[in-house]
């Protein structure tokens, strides 16, 4: 258990550094879609909710887990949808069609 904790801390630290380096390079042009995308990715928390609701340990846990799945799933679906819709709109000035 102790070892797992240290491993988790390493993972968190490395992911944090990667996050800084990768996101620093995102053009300010795309900061709104960036936020909706990270929001969708963050909804990966749904996996925790799925296990919680699926294991059916207590009714209380199952109910909370089920609500958690609903809210996370709405973020996944809505987040990816709107990010893609926004990105589709970004066009470079190509040849003029008159």
């Amino acid at each position, binding site marked *: *258990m102790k070892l*797992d904790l240290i*491993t*988790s801390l390493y*993972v*968190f630290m490395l*992911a*944090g550094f990667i*996050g*800084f380096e*990768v*996101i620093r*390079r*995102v053009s*300010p*042009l*795309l*900061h*709104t879609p*960036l*936020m909706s*995308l*990270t929001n*969708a*990715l*963050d*909804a*990966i*928390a749904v*996996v*925790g909710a*799925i*296990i919680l*609701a*699926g*294991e059916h340990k*207590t009714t*209380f*846990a*199952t109910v*909370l887990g*089920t*609500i*958690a*799945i*609903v*809210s996370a*799933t*709405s*973020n996944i*679906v*809505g*987040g*990816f*949808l*709107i990010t*893609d819709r*926004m*990105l589709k709109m*970004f066009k470079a000035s190509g040849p003029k069609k008159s």
Partner: protein
Amino acid sequence: MMSELPSTQLIEVTYLVASALFILSLKWMSSPATARRGVWAGEVGMLLAIAGTLLHHGIVDYKWLAAALVLGTIIGIPLGKVAMTAVPQRTALSHAFGALCVTLVGTAEFYLRAPAVPKFMMAVLGMEVILGSLTFTGSLMAAGKLQEVLPQRPITYKGQNIVNLMVLAIAVVVAVILVMHPEKIYLYPLIVILPLIFGVLMIIPIGGADMPTVISLLNSYAGLSAAAMGFVLDNKLLIIAGALDGASGFILSVNMSKAMNRSFSNVLFGAFGQEQASAAAGAEARPVKSASPEEAAGILAAANKVVIVPGYGMAVSQAQHKVRELYDALTKRGVDVRFGIHPVAGRMPGHMNVLLAEADIPYDKLMEMDDANGDFAQTDVALVIGANDVTNPAARTDASSPIYGMPILDVDKARTVMVIKRGMSAGFAGIDNPLYYDDKTLMLFGDAKGFVGSIVREISGGGH
């Protein structure tokens, strides 16, 4: 528990692949050319991870899971299809949903494990639940203000920060007590309820112009609470996704606070909207020059280089499509038209870019603040549409101004400045803008959409 079932290993592999895809997804967001591939990578990673999780050997009942996944999808689709102008409130709402998920899972985990909660686990669980709860109500409040179902005016009172911080501090103290004595189960509701209250209190003093910072900060909190949940569940994928989201929100908050010249500690402690010093007192009637749409059209059509500076006012009046017509009309006449975008223009980071992209304006015409500032000296006309404080030269020159030191778009360096504005009221911060009294400034009084429309008619009508 430790016997490695094949399904457990398979799940771990799907999580590993999903982690890689998530990182690639953000990497591909670096440029509009690859960004849609990034969404695709994120979607594949997400599907893989969910499919893998459904194989989990402990899952005994799929009925509720299926129902919840379907219901979430039904709610998610309309949230993915909102109008572009509603994106800030949609984003705030999705932060609330994310935080709700994390808080509920944390709460269920606590009651499943209590009273035998190891110290470290209780510490991260406390963090998860505190951050999750305050992000939940804070984001709901922000969404409410942005959607204008709540009063947008910041509400401040004496000792507000002390009251707010006390509420949060008590929650943290209770969490520490729980770490020491997890058997005091009756204390647990406090680390949910107090942060829920704090979330509301935190947003009460926030006004519209602070929203970009607040939304970024809530984004960061949502990510960190998800990462904490990853520690509790010993789920590396969740730690990685939470850390990425937390880093993203953090970088955006720092960007926003820099663009508003607020110290970062000012942002971290949620002490927004402090400088409501009503400096508008000195705004006695000074002469301004105003112009009609015909005159404005004549000047614009005669220019070689025009930089348009959009602000929240453009979004409010839904003028972006008329702005696009103006862009077309001027470009057709050989005028070089570009856009200068301030980082905090609008209600969330990148807000203006999305609105202009929606109106089909090519993204290579959108300049960041530094590039635009390098250009104004060679610009014939700077056309300010619905922006105010971000163009206020007092930020450069007047050390007594509340916005002194804030980076601005130097529109006053252009040969002619035109400002479309409803009237002479001061901006959000209540600060008078000396730009309006400048000799080379022409005020175009009217609604942004209507005024730009009239200019377009003049240019197109007089063009044959």
